[in-house]
């Protein structure tokens, strides 16, 4: 188990394009770090540089206090789960898991013991003599994990390990990975483009965009205090709504009525003209279902609902709105960058499942204006981010982690 430190890491390819650009990131011992971002953001390249499959153009890669830039992958003692599992097709499941031990010339009895131990953890016992080709996707995934945990590696590296599984299996394996990491308390770097995985698995999440780090923080901080439009738009599902707004004093005029800003936020945005307001879907509610006591904390507006989606436990409403051309272009570019295909300017609003709001009718909505963020439409910066509140969230998450790892150790379950 070791910490991983990256200092000003740069990766340039032959054509001079920087796939990873000046990334500095410290990963603590035992921490679960997620690298997340849309395709082409450099997250996989970064992971491959950690494990040594990709040369580092400049910068320092330090694992457990040693600079490893010039070390071959096998000298770094890391284990990795590949996206398509990279199981050796000519070897049985047993030999696949035993492969790193065989290379290290571990004696037979020990190999037997450790593979069986891994098979216990991953429930692979009945498949040990089969070949990978005869396994299901989930089983293959578990074999790949088995190969990773069978030896005492300094860290686990995962390269989108669940992207080839169907949704249900993905959910199961996600909790499995989380449990395993907590139990072994091993430093883990996990690459994904799936934000559910990012939010649920990571102690901290590193959001990358075009090779650059945007924000490194606990999932909660990313969600509540994003640094910019990109992070705000990437984290959260359904995504945050961005509405054009005109500033007059401390009052924002939006397509969904006026929003009054508190003093702190009013001061942060003062002196600007056109702005973008970021509102998460759950900050909205069907006005008729809001407590009288809560009502004054937000604003009420009327809008025509285009489509509603009732999901049993929740309900979404889609409300189209008009936006100036420059904002429209800006939003379209953002959505393209986030790998989505936003065809129209519409807000997604989460309302109570019992709401009787219906499609094609005008309805009254309530908007919790305390939580909105205001962004600069040209730079994308979050003007109203509360850095202290964010840092506090991440600090709390770190405390939680320490507690969990200690309790796992207290139960006497240690690394295999």
């Amino acid at each position, binding site marked *: 188990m070791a910490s991983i430190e990256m200092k000003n890491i740069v990766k340039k390819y032959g054509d001079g394009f920087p796939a990873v650009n000046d990334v500095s990131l410290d990963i603590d011992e035992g921490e679960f770090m997620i690298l997340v971002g849309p395709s082409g953001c450099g997250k996989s390249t970064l992971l491959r540089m950690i494990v*040594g499959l990709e040369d580092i153009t400049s910068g320092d890669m330090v694992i457990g206090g040693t600079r490893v830039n010039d070390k071959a992958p096998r000298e770094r003692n890391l284990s*990795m789960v590949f996206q398509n599992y*990279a199981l050796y097709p000519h070897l049985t499941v047993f030999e696949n898991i035993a492969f790193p031990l065989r290379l290290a010339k571990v004696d037979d009895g020990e190999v037997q013991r450790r593979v069986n131990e891994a098979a216990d953890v991953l429930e692979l016992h009945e498949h040990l003599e089969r070949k990978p080709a005869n396994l299901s996707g989930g089983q293959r995934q578990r074999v790949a994990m088995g190969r990773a945990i069978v030896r005492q590696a300094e860290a686990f590296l995962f390269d989108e390990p669940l992207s080839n599984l169907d949704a249900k299996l993905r959910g199961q394996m996600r909790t499995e990975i989380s449990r395993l990491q907590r139990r072994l308390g091993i430093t883990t770097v996990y690459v994904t483009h799936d934000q559910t995985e990012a939010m649920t698995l990571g102690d901290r999440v590193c959001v990358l965009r075009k090779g650059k780090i945007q924000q490194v923080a606990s999932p909660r901080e990313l969600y509540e205090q994003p640094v910019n439009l990109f992070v705000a738009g990437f984290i959260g599902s359904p995504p945050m709504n961005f509405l054009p707004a005109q500033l007059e004093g401390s009052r924002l005029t939006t397509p969904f009525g006026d929003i009054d800003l508190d003093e702190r936020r009013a001061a942060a945005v003062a002196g600007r003209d056109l702005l973008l307001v970021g509102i998460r879907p759950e900050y909205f509610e069907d006005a008729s279902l809001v407590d009288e006591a809560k009502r004054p904390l937000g604003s009420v507006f009327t809008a025509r609902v285009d489509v509603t989606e009732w999901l049993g436990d929740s309900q979404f409403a889609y409300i189209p709105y008009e936006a100036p051309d420059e904002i429209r272009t800006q939003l379209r570019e953002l959505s393209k960058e986030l790998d989505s295909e936003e065809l129209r300017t519409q807000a997604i609003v989460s309302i109570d499942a019992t709401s009787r709001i219906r499609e094609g009718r005008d309805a009254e909505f309530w908007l919790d204006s305390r939580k909105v963020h205001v962004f600069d439409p040209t730079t994308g910066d979050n003007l109203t981010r509360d850095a202290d509140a964010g840092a506090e969230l991440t600090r709390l998450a770190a405390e939680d982690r320490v507690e969990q790892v200690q309790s796992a150790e207290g139960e006497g379950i240690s690394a295999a």
Partner: protein
Amino acid sequence: MSTKEKTWWGVAGVAIVLYALFPIAWIVSLSFKAPSALNNGNFLPGAPTWENYSLILTGGASDLFLPALRNSFGICLIATAISCLLAMFAAYAIARLDFPGKKFILGTALAVAIFPVISIVTPLFNLWRNIGLYDTWPGLIIPYLSLTLPISIWTMSAFFREIPWEMEQAAQVDGATTWQAFRKVIVPLAAPGVFTTAIIAFFIAWNDFVYGISLTSTEQARPVPAALGLFSGASQFEDPTGAIAAAAVIVTIPVIVLVLLFQRRIVAGLTNGAVKG
């Protein structure tokens, strides 16, 4: 599929087997005919006899046939081995490495594959006589490479492209050296492709007739197909038909054994190399 349809496809299947085996059955039957029965116009031999086989294996024709059989095996195996070795390196480079000239090499292989053999024979005939390679093993092995090497490169490149090279990296992360990764992971994965390619290359070399008949003159290097072609010309037999049939059966046995053992791989090799989307 309905039962009626199934029956029809079954009938068609039987027709294919008949189509494929009928001429072989005929030549086998012919090889068991006694000289007196050769001209009776029947398909089956009537009273089968080993006479023809003893003629070519121990009798009067054995000094023509046995050396030819030895030559064929020796020359074809060596030519196959050389072209597989060369093709292995080339295919590895083509499938695995990024370098300009890949297309050129594949294009050259293609051009050589469609090259009319007779156009090579004419100048070689003269050259071989001048430098003493005429009627020798090397004198056939070298031109055989023009038959076996292109198809070996194509087939093996197609096989090697299917190898999940990511495995090599996984092995390195698992603690393997470059050499260990190659030997423990890549070699076992590549071996079937090399083996299949070798079989196909052997078939092609075994089938050669033009080089065999043009670049040899005695049993020193003459391979079986050429010897067969000349049986009829040799005057020591009254009627060479039976002997030819027996010899034809013997040279067909090795390829049929290979086909029966490795049919699945051979089909994969033939089609992989040629058509792949």
